[in-house]
């Protein structure tokens, strides 16, 4: 009997027919565009045609999107990883490890030794869909990406955990002019690193490695990168696309179905429609008409005017470039809305040429640019000024609704919302790295289903039952869509559902509104995504009130920039002339900066007039700017202090201490403690990306915070150095500073030593001391640690341990006292010199430059004095909070917020650093915000992860400083 295996993947449909000898005698592969039943029926009909007269066949279904379908058709279902395993065992019995990448999943199967099968977690990218998404972003096909990557000269670090993160890494690279060859290669490298780190989890990939699935079959370079990373040549066998289907066919238990009958059954299949749905966007045609009447779109152009004076605004956004020319009456004379396609320079070049051609006698009085590409455009075309996006949008919104009190802009990659209070930007919400990319998500999705974004969004307008996809990050939405497809949702309902999700994401993830009234009375919506009626309608439905969408909703940033240019016109505009524009050329080169340990990948853009623009830098150093102002950066001071506790050797042997998490604060304590006892101490070096990669393969939970993940690299480093013991104790409790109700450490800080002990296999040859210790009980501590030390090192007198403990506590308190004194000194200097102060709030380990990505330097580059939460927390008396204040480090956050709120000094502001995945901060951020806002202070939060893109951070900081300035001006005006 012939057996058919049908593999219904997330994006493609694959099937094979095998004969009695288990030989593949037929195979077929195609994209299903989520029309699973229809395409399956077609595919089976083709088989029926290829094997005339076949009646009874064995049929099994497998694949991530096939489960529900198989159930409803009453056809046996085989789990797809299991199918792969069965096929591999049969066809390639020598195989040790299978690496299979699919549309939305990545798997590693260890076949020999202890059998293990690993699949990517719910939050993991690094798959075929991820590569497709990145290719779309680069405006090339995955195959072209493969070709381009062959010529790469450099690898950039790109986070591949999810598409959204990677995007925010790639976009700035593109804007800075990095080569597509290098980016393509970097994307492959990221996928490889993600697969190995995320899935292997400490188990080594060795022996015969087999590559399966679409991406690894079609992309030779991806295989290359895997080979390089594994230092081992893997093979991609014949039928590498079909292993799931082959396995499904092989697993047929002998039961048979009638093929023609089954095809008929599948053809007549109508889904149960079991998906969760929202109410339709429009009940009827009339509602839609009324809506269209309220929201007119389209730009009406005016004349340039007698005097030919014009002002130019350019908004170089993440996926689109918007340009506007206005006249003396602030009317639009000319505008452009263009796709970015990776590099904004040629686009703006074309735009300017068009202006000069269209208006030969134009008199450009002033020009301004904004957006992600602000710097490069400003440099390339000598634009007069750059402004932060939030200010640009506010300037434009005021023009359409002078009493605007809330602006929400959903662009290609980001959501920006801000409240306006008393004419100033009062509160800014930018989407965090995890939920960004909303507009471009719609676009990618439309592209994947074969539509343009406009067509796709319009499909949803009359959907009867929009799919309820929730309000989570886009990766989750992907699988929600998969589920909906499985349950038979139509394209129309999915389209409407996605529009609703974008809106819910903005409202509940970014702004986190509890009710519509809290948004404001005069809401202006803008940004390209709101040009889609479905999104706008979903927004109005969700908040229950009508909003203003300016007819130029997509151009607001550029229009605002033009208005700003007009209001702040220089005496003479320096913008590039028509003549010079004709000979304009632009050359890009990538180099590595050696200015500091960050080793930024820089892109050097040289323009034909010899001017240069450097991108990718995290600080001002490579720009060699003459920044004579002295920097007051308490992070630097703290680093110096910690560095003064140098490593040394001594008679009792060397203790290795991994420098991460709470060690950033307790290092002076342990350093002194062991020194007093006659031990040598060796600390691991400052974190780097390389150090992280060194330990990446033993991280068991891919959603734990980055600071914790770094610990694996630190421990690996110490092992390489060959220390006598590694000391990293478990600490449920921290020291009690009297600020809160309790003095816990967070679970990760408290118990990460356990994770290291259980997962870093290389530790088995070295003493690893990770006992539970209680520094909070100073009196009992010496006895307890004494027992631990004697167990590991033999006899040590208790009196010595007691003395060492005393010295260690003294040193710890001295360290903290010096830090606090310095903080106060900086505060005083700031007051005397009238400098703004930022209290950068986080945890001790945010000091690590690999964790903070140089945000401290960025703040100081803005001209502010930087101090830390632990340098002011002692100035505050214990006070009531609305949450349980039970963690020592977090009590300091509340205290620092209280200090700022009570100071009444508008020049002292707070920025809170939050590590992605920090569950505790879900509690603290709300409380810190609450403390600040109760005294009308601005709260700024920055979420950080492995990503190194500081673009969004810059926007936040610039907006903060702009808002502070505005508040100060208003205060003066009122007085």
């Amino acid at each position, binding site marked *: 009997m012939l057996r058919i295996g049908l593999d219904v993947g997330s994006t493609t449909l694959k099937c094979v027919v095998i004969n009695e000898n288990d030989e593949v005698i037929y195979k077929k592969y195609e994209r299903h565009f989520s029309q699973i039943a229809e395409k399956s029926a077609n595919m089976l009909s083709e088989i029926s045609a290829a094997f005339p007269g076949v009646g009874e066949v064995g049929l099994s279904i497998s694949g991530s999107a096939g489960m529900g379908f198989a159930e409803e058709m009453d056809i046996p279902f085989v789990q797809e990883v299991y199918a792969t395993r069965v096929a591999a065992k049969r066809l390639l019995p020598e195989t040790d490890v299978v690496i299979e990448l699919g549309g939305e999943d990545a798997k590693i199967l260890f076949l020999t030794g202890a059998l293990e099968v690993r699949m990517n977690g719910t939050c993991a990218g690094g798959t075929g869909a991820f590569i497709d998404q990145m290719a779309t972003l680069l405006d090339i096909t995955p195959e072209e990406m493969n070709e381009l990557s062959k010529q790469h000269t450099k690898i950039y670090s790109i986070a591949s955990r999810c598409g959204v993160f990677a995007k925010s890494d790639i976009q700035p690279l593109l804007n800075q002019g990095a080569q597509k060859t290098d980016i393509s290669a970097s994307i492959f490298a990221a996928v490889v690193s993600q697969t190995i780190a995320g899935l292997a989890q400490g188990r080594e990939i060795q022996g015969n490695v087999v590559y399966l699935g679409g991406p690894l079959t079609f992309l030779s370079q991806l295989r290359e990168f895997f080979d390089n990373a594994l230092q081992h040549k893997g093979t991609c066998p014949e039928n590498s696309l079909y292993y799931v289907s082959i396995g499904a066919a092989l697993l047929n238990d002998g039961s048979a179905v009638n093929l023609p009958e089954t095809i008929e059954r599948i053809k007549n299949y109508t889904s149960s429609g079991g998906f969760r749905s929202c109410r339709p966007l429009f009940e009827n045609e009339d509602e839609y008409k009324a809506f269209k009447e309220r929201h007119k779109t389209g730009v009406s152009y005016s004349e340039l005017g007698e005097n030919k004076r014009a002002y130019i605004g350019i908004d170089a956004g993440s996926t689109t470039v918007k340009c506007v020319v206005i006249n003396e009456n602030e009317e639009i004379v000319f505008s452009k809305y263009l796709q970015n396609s990776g590099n904004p320079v040629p686009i703006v070049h074309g735009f300017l040429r068009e202006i000069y051609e269209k208006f030969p006698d134009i008199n450009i009085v002033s020009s301004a640019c904004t957006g992600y590409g602000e710097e490069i455009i400003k440099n390339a075309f000598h634009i007069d000024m750059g402004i932060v996006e939030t200010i640009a949008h506010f300037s434009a919104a005021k023009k359409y609704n002078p009493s605007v009190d809330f602006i929400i802009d959903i662009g290609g990659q980001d959501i920006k919302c801000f409240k306006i209070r008393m004419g100033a930007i009062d509160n800014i919400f930018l989407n965090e790295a995890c939920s960004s990319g909303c507009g471009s998500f719609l676009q990618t999705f439309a592209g994947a289903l074969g539509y343009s974004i406009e067509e796709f969004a319009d499909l949803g307008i009359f959907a009867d039952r929009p799919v309820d996809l929730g309000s989570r990050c886009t990766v989750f939405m992907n699988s929600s869509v998969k589920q909906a497809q499985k349950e038979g949702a139509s394209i129309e309902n999915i389209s409407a559902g996605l529009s609703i999700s974008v809106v819910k994401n903005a409202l509940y993830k970014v702004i986190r509104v509890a009710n519509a009234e809290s948004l404001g009375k005069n809401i202006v919506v803008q940004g390209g995504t709101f040009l889609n009626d479905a999104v706008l309608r979903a927004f109005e439905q969700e908040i229950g009130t009508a909003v203003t969408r300016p007819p130029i909703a997509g151009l607001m940033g550029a229009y605002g920039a033009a208005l700003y240019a007009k209001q702040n016109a220089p005496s003479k505009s320096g913008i590039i002339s028509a003549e010079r524009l004709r000979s304009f050329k632009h050359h890009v080169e990538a180099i590595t900066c050696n200015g500091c340990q960050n080793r930024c990948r820089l892109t050097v853009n040289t323009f034909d007039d010899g001017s240069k623009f450097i991108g990718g830098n995290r600080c001002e150093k490579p720009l060699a700017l003459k920044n004579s102002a002295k920097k007051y950066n308490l992070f630097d001071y703290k680093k110096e202090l910690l560095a003064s506790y140098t490593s040394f050797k001594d008679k009792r042997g060397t203790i290795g201490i991994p420098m991460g998490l709470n060690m950033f604060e307790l290092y002076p304590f342990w350093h002194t403690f062991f020194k007093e006892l006659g031990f040598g101490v060796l600390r691991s070096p400052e974190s780097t990306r390389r150090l992280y990669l060194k330990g990446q393969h033993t991280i068991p939970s891919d959603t734990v915070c980055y600071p914790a993940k770094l610990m694996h690299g630190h421990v690996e480093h110490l092992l390489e150095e060959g220390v006598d013991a590694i000391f990293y104790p478990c600490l449920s409790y921290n020291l009690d500073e009297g600020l809160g109700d309790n003095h816990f450490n967070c679970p990760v800080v408290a*118990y*990460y030593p356990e994770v290291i002990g259980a997962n870093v296999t290389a530790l088995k040859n070295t003493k690893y001391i990770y006992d539970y210790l209680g520094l909070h009980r100073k009196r009992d501590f010496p006895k307890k640690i004494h027992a631990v030390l004697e167990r590991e090192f033999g006899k040590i007198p208790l009196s010595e341990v007691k003395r060492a403990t005393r010295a260690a506590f003294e040193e710890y308190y001295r360290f903290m006292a010096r830090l606090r004194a310095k903080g106060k000194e900086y505060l005083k200097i700031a007051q005397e010199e009238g400098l703004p102060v930022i209290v950068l709030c986080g945890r001790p380990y945010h000091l690590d430059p690999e964790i903070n990505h140089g945000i401290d330097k960025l703040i100081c580059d803005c001209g502010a004095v930087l101090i830390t939460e632990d340098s002011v927390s002692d100035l505050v008396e214990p006070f009531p909070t609305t949450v349980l204040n039970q963690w020592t480090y977090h009590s300091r956050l509340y205290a620092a917020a209280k200090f700022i709120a009570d100071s009444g000094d508008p020049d002292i502001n707070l920025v809170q650093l939050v590590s992605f995945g920090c569950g505790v901060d879900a509690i603290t951020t709300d409380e810190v915000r609450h403390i600040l806002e109760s005294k009308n202070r601005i709260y700024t939060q920055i979420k950080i992860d492995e990503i190194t893109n500081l673009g969004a951070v810059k926007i936040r900081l610039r907006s903060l400083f702009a808002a502070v300035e505005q508040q100060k001006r208003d205060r003066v005006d009122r007085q």
Partner: protein
Amino acid sequence: MIDNKDRIEFTREMKRSYKILFPNMADIHFRILHKVFINYGYDIEMLTNTDQRVIDEGLKYVHNDTCYPALLTIGQLLSALKSGKYDVNRTAVMMTQTGGGCRASNYIHLLRKALKNSGMGQVPVISVNVAGLEKNSGFKITLPLLRRAIAALAYGDLLMLLNNQVKPYELRKGESDENTARWIDFVSDKFAQGRAYSQREIKSYFKSIVESYAAIEVKRTPKVKVGIVGEIYVKYAALGNNNLEEFLASEDCEVMVPGLLGFVFYCLINNINDIELYGGSRIKRAVLRLLLKYLTRFETYLIEAVEAEGSFIAPSRVTELMKLAEPVIGIGCKMGEGWLLPAEIIELIDHGFENVICAQPFGCLPNHIVGKGMIRKIRSLRPNANIVPIDYDPGATKVNQENRIKLMLSVAREKLSKETISGAFC
């Protein structure tokens, strides 16, 4: 210190005139437990609403990065209060608070915030804790109440244990569930009258319970045995784990879920462990040990009843669990489910349930350590372990979770068919 000036205390007067609502978690246990409070004169109701509005309310009023259980329990309470079924001016809500280093200790404050933001700030919130975190004159956890509550949990543990062991094999479909429902009603009735708490009654009823399950006609066929461990809420609550037990039943598995008593004793033991690890009052330690000894008698009754009859697997004592944990993780690890979770995995494997689902809310902090963090080590100690961690949150889809579980089950079935002659489980 907590800002208590706005806190609405649950007063003695309220005890007479207010209805108290509490979210469901472990269905069998909470149905019985509920009656203990009724017996103490409270007008109290367990919520069973599980519709979409629960999640919607949660998403709307709770920080979306907070753990899923907070979102669900708060959502359940808000959705009930808004349903119009209750007079919001005469209703209080109740929630547990462990006081550990996990963020779960903050649920109660998140609930208050959510109530305030949805215009129901007048609703008193009662914290159920034994750590002395918040006090209410109208609601006190006394030792007799605690003892009765623990007796209720013991009944719950026994019924859950036996129902799980019989149901997959019963000849007449539904018989075990009927038996369980009958016992829940019976015990509840007794509890409401203040009975079934005494040592004599407990011993006798436990015996009858075990016998009643043993009397159900079964056909023992080889089945895939799956254990469930994890964060306490998603481990038990069907609302939190997308009806996990139901799904496993549909996949023809026998399921074992370790009982709630273990968690209660684990919390108590941690106070003793703290003193041993870091120092502290010996008197306090002695008192705690006495209390533990007193309360673990219920565990003893349960184990003895099951073992005396002889057809079923009895759970391990919490003190034995602690010993199972020690080769894996330090017993100072006490946030979330702490050392108990790896201990339960090993217990399950040793009881023949080598296929284990470790369920946790997405981003659960303690589970990075005690769940996902320990799997590797457990595998090295028990090479036959087949463990799959599953994350739950409002965005994670059922299809994704079930796919992962199906993978685990495929491996389990392959092994089972190798072990059984029939080989009918391919």
